[in-house]
């Protein structure tokens, strides 16, 4: 996922009206792309074959209990952020879903503020995770560099710590991605 790319949200709900209404609310923000599935089987196919970042998954569908569908989706694509959709009376199952990897839940009938807030949280989570991965990849180059040029590797490492300490942070990974890139490119 790159920073400029719109995230894809898959709405999985057998109730056509609810599915359409959720999709419409999401599309109106202009911030996301959407896909729809009306059964778990249809959702698995989409997850296997296409890019999906966030799934909104109904906890009660005719063909399967939503928590079992959640487990299967996480097996097929562990990085997908799953938000459960539950009826008011079934919200008690939301924590069970969380223990199997659900990120959050929304009760139906949904209110727009809540839906968009939960999506934004999921989006921020994915963005943080991706930035962290990117930072690790850059910092991990130090091992390679240390084989070729230990002096340069130590200098970069010292600079990373100097910047971390002067910003009052705990660890070089707390520095911004651009700062880390800058240190790697400009420390001679």
């Amino acid at each position, binding site marked *: 996922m790159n920073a400029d790319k719109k995230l894809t949200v898959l709405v999985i709900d057998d109730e056509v009206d609810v599915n359409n209404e959720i999709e419409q609310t999401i599309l109106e923000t202009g911030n996301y792309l959407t896909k729809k599935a009306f059964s778990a089987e249809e959702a698995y196919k989409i997850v296997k074959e296409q890019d999906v970042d966030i799934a909104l998954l109904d906890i009660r569908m005719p063909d399967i209990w939503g928590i079992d569908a959640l487990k299967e989706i996480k097996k097929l694509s562990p990085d997908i952020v799953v938000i459960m959709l539950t009826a008011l009376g079934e919200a008690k199952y939301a924590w069970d879903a969380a223990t199997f990897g659900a990120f959050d839940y929304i009760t139906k009938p949904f209110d727009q503020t809540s839906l968009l807030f939960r999506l934004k949280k999921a989006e921020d989570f994915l963005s943080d995770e991706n930035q962290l991965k990117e930072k690790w990849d850059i910092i991990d180059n130090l*091992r390679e560099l240390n084989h070729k040029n230990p002096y340069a590797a130590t200098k970069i490492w010292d600079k990373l710590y100097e910047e971390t300490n002067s910003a009052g942070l705990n660890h070089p990974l707390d520095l911004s991605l651009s700062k880390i890139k800058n240190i790697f490119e400009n420390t001679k």
Partner: protein
Amino acid sequence: MSEKPHILVVDDEVDVNNEISGVIKDTGEFIVSSAFSGSEAIEKVKSGLKNNSFIDVVILDIRMPDMPGTQALTEIKKINKNIEAIMLTALDDAKLAWKAYQEGAIDYIVKPFREVDLLFRVRKAVQERERKLLENKRQNLIGQIYDIMLSSKSDMQKIQELLKEEIDKFGAENFAGLPYESLKEAASKYFNNK
């Protein structure tokens, strides 16, 4: 967090405060205390730091007579940025929750609250706080491992062999993908053999 997580409930409405505290306390999973104003909450967070009775999550009413919840949030985050905050809002104020989120709150709950929602948000906030604490420990340990690697070629070779064992055991892509316990195992073996 060795003991039970500590939750501070901040709401000037005594009944609401008692009700929220009661629901959380009844689970037996948390230590719960209350504050009835923004300034009392700030004092409790400060004294918690002094007495080693750290507050992990604060549930903070967005409208209080002495100061807005968002202001209390900013002050609390200044004292301890690792505290997670859940805002309490009336349905009409949910937009204020977005502002609080941008200023560092992790979530919000609408009043009148539903028990199931309250407990989900509190447990998630505690989980997130634990995840961040463990990730900090993990990152610090990785920092120490890099220090070892960069100290000499033979040290680098030794620690890399130990890390390789853990990577194979765990099935990670590289050592940065290892969990804290695996990294600790490799680092302990390195220091024990030194």
